[in-house]
């Protein structure tokens, strides 16, 4: 029975890394987070614009829908702006077995 050694792992994983599609084709999650929180922020802020007395009493007099809605909207916009200002580095050109860590960070 052959020993499975560190060299075997290095070889198979490095080979898979060259064929891997994640770096090139995985979308940027910031767009999704930004979108979700903008949507949530808008909906909840609208709830907060005309709160009923009941909901204000429940929440200790704090217009929690308005505050939470605005905070989520701000978070969503932060992600979208971050994405715009520092877009993901373009995927590296396909290489053989060489190291390819040259792109900038997100």
């Amino acid at each position, binding site marked *: 029975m052959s020993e499975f050694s560190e060299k075997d*792992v290095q070889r198979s994983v490095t080979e898979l890394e060259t064929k*891997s599609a994640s770096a090139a084709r995985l979308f940027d999650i910031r767009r999704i987070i930004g979108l979700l929180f903008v949507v949530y922020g808008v909906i909840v802020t609208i709830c907060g614009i005309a709160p009923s007395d009941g909901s204000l009493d429940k929440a200790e007099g704090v217009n929690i829908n308005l505050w939470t809605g605005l905070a989520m909207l701000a978070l969503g916009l932060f992600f979208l702006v971050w994405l715009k200002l520092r877009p993901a580095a373009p995927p590296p050109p396909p290489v053989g077995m060489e190291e390819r860590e040259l792109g900038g960070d997100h």
Partner: protein
Amino acid sequence: MPPTHLAAELRLPANWLDYGLLAIYFLFVLGVGFLARKSVKTSLDFFLSGRSLPAWVTGLAFISANLGATEVLGMAANSAQYGVYTVHWYWIGAIPAMVFLGLVMMPFYYGSKVRSVPEFLLLRFDKSAHLLSSVLFAFAAILIAGVNLYSLAIVVEALLGWPEWVAIVVAGFFVLAYITIGGLSSAIYNEVLQFFVILAALIPITVLGLKRVGGWDGLTDSLTAQKGGDFVTAWGGTGIGSDNPLGANWLTIVLGLGFVLSFGYWTTNFAEVQRALSAKNLSAAQRTPLIAAFPKIFIVFLVMIPGLVAAVLVPKIGQASSGLEYNDAIPYLMGQLLPNGVLGIAITGLVAAFMAGMAANVSSFNTVFTTDIWAKYVKRGQEDAYYLRFGRLITVLGVLASMGTAFLASTFSNIMSYLQTLFSFFNVPMFVVFIIGMFWKRASMVSGFWGLLAGTVSAMVNYFVIYKQGVIDIPSDQGANFVSAIVGFVAGAVVMVAVSLFTRPKPIEELQGLVYGTKSPGMSEPAAEGDDAWYRRPALLGWGAIILAAACYIPFSF
């Protein structure tokens, strides 16, 4: 401690708006799965995101995988029961281990290019250690996923009135769909999303809860009056031999929780380590647990304060007369404080937290089952595409099995606390085997298997025989866990050393990159551009987190 039962009158006044917010979340989660699908071409993509993710993503996924709802609800319950002692689970009980993982262990994990924690044991020890740890892990992962699913079902039934089986099937189906389609990238991306949704859920509860009881001072005053001054301190009443509800003293807290249990979980639990292994280079992998440490330090306030507030508002919480269990703390506050709108966000956050806990276990299960068990012992030498297909198949089977264990758990009300304890047993012996294997070249090939076996068995013996049969008196389950952890650690270590002295060590050429003091042959990649920025230095991040956590203790220690 996951909820075994929730009080009947916790039904939330949720309306179409709240359900709409929840539905939007499910759409996004599925969408992430479909979008991630394009990137899955190899098994490395499916199981490890092609090792290409940036540190901020893996760091947030790392903390999010830990923020399962059993953790959130359970820690709030802990606070309602034990007070400010809860901070120990977040500061001493997490930060040192997370920093150790990032600074010390990650060069070995990431540099060796192993695809899983058991694979590291295969390289360091032998096939028997590998097979034992893989099987234990796979088994534990499915059971934990099922516990998460069942806990979700109980909570959803109490809060929204859905029958348990509906919640199990619906939530299980969503997790199954997005992980089968998009692999680990989908799981990790959704965990990052879940992190922010969970924050959006907990912050309003905390803020309003504090307002209700008169701010932090009002809270501490009421608690001191009801439960005594120690309740709002971290260390009060923890002298050795003194009496406290936790049944632990500062020594068992520091050694049992802070060292053994905590290191066992954070450094060898593959559901967590997998997130770091998917990072794009060594610097990002090292920074993953370090980046995660900072939210970990502060999130305690978002789960502890609701628990404390519940203890004030419902003084007899946890006792039969109040009609509320400790686990009901957060659901109770949701019903009391949140109007529709934010209520929907809170419900979504809770559901998101359950799904995060389940998904992390499913995604680590499918990796260990495919690359460690199937590809090494059942069907060797196939093409990569075969293992990718198999990975998807076993994901479906794994989720179905989790649904099965969820239904099984529903028939026993007490089995869940036993399961929690059992799983802490599995983590500690793994940690012993790792730490000795990583630092002692002489640890022999077979010592890994025997150390793992000895540690696991002795921790179980301590819990089931010595504690449960009352041989030694320990007042609480948590206190007993700390002791079992120390016992498991010591037993595993002793056996490893003894066995190593009589058996063959591994030749040093085969230990390159696996033991402290050696370098991995594949690890001479140049640093990525920008990775030497001051805020990207692992040492700075790591020590910064430790100092911050220590500083946080100060207000609670006098």
